């Protein structure tokens, strides 16, 4: 009986100490507060990087939010975030807005994103140009015979419309056009790859990390999809991923960007399926 009371008391004391400790650290970190907002493509990198960065620098408290590239840039200009994630370069209208406010948007390329177009290994077609890919995905081309293959119906496989890969493919390959409504929408890169591997007439697209012998990556505009071609920007379905800051970064913002572009940050980039800069 006595023993129980002792443990209870100990538990209460420990909990109280825990609460006090948490409260104390929260107060202390209020000065090292960092808000990152923007592109959902960059979001997984930023989130993972923030987690590890915060573990190493307990005085910094980082909040990472999505919303899309546009929202990120807007809130950077409004001063509600410190770093804007963006999967595209800033638009002229955004630069004008920044100038009107006397701000200077500084781009920092943190990774490259490349999307491979894949077909069934038995498919004769080994390359397409961007126009053909767009026509296939929007429904203007229906058979492989129209692009130099056998007379089989093309089965269009796409990612779910809410995914970052879909967004990137839509911009880079389709120029914002709508994917035909009867396309098979798959919930992950892996699912796209396995459907394409099993379907002789299929075409799909995945991040570079998901290529395997089970599918055939085709050339786009005659350029092979390799890390080197994506890094150099020669491969058409590739793009840089940015973190924008207002003016030259300093303090915790600079430390965080250095971390993302350093060895550990670039390891996260690779783990999340993007292409590291080095």
């Amino acid at each position: 009986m006595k023993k129980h009371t002792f443990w209870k008391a100990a538990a209460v004391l420990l909990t109280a100490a825990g609460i006090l400790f948490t409260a104390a650290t929260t107060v202390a970190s209020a000065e090292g507060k960092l808000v990152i907002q923007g592109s959902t493509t960059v979001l997984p990198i930023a989130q993972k990087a923030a987690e590890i960065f915060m573990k190493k620098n307990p005085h910094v408290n980082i909040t990472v939010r999505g919303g899309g590239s546009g929202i990120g840039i807007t809130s950077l200009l409004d001063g509600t975030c410190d770093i804007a994630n963006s999967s595209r370069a800033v638009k002229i209208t955004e630069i004008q807005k920044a100038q009107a406010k006397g701000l200077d948007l500084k781009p920092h390329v943190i990774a490259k994103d490349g999307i491979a177009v894949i077909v069934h290994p038995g498919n004769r077609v080994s390359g397409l140009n961007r126009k053909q890919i767009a026509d296939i995905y929007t429904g203007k081309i229906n058979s492989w015979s129209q692009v130099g293959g056998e007379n089989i119906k093309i089965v269009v496989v796409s990612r779910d419309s809410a995914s970052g890969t879909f967004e990137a493919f839509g911009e880079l390959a389709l120029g914002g056009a709508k994917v035909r409504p009867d396309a098979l929408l798959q919930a992950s890169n892996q699912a796209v790859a396995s459907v394409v591997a099993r379907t002789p007439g299929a075409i799909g697209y995945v991040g570079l990390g998901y290529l395997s012998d089970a599918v055939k990556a085709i050339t786009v505009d005659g350029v092979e999809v390799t890390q080197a071609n994506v890094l150099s920007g020669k491969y058409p379905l590739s793009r840089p991923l940015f973190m924008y800051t207002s003016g030259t970064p300093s303090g915790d913002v600079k430390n965080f960007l250095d971390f993302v572009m350093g060895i550990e940050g670039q390891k996260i980039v690779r783990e999340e399926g993007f292409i590291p800069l080095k």
Partner: protein
Amino acid sequence: MTYRKDRRNFRENLYRQLFAILSFASLAFLLGITLTLFREGLPIFQHVSLPSFLFGKYWYPTHEPPEFGVLPLILASAMVTSGAMLVCIPLGLGTALYINELAGEKQRAVLKPLVEILASIPSVVYGFFGMAIFAPFLQNLLHLPTGLCALTASIILGVMAVPCVCSIAEDALSFVPRSFREASYALGANRWQTLVKVVVPAAGSGIFTAFLMGTGRVIGETMTVLMVAGGAAVIPRSFLQPVRPMSAAIAAEMGEAPVGSSHYHALFAIGLILFLITLGFSILAELLSRKFRAKLGGSL
């Protein structure tokens, strides 16, 4: 003495209260979920009108400007569900009839647990089986462009719902009093005539309840359709076409829809539709099974 009695009363009361709270907890959850569905689903109608939401033909939730037409998703659910019931009703009812009326003790001892095991297989395993084995098989057999289509989903879902339909139908059959069968035999009817003309009609509304419960189970099933239905948000015109049922759309898109966006609210509104449909089926099933019990009880 009185102290002890008081204490016992107090404890009894305490347990009573405790269990009352526990049993009302599920009511609280139901209320909470219903409220959330309405609160998060209704805001979508500030962006689109109810008719253009329900009857819109295009589902492009992330396009600029977005289109929120859920007709393809509703029709896909209806199609896959009706297909599944075509598979499930003969299988489930046949199994129930055989187990309850025709099988000997030994067969029953094997069959019943087997059907129950079918119910305990996780739906993701069904989905995996459908995706990796059954869909490629159908694709080769029927020379389809892809095996991920409404037919595959219907067959797999139909098999999944067999245990549910079978066990409820079997319950209904076992409710039919022995005297009914004996009277039938006494009048010179054979086993088949007794089964078709006496037992099944007597258990009729109970069997119908089984179908309704099966339908409710199939329409809300998510993992399997997400994996085998193909996921194309297009108005289905044939069973050999990829489709995107409502539950699959919610499961696939909710993770990446920004909280509070119109896409998010649209997905909740789809959830609301799904909830109202299954609620309708459950209420109908409950009413029917009450009627069924009353009928058999009254005629005893």
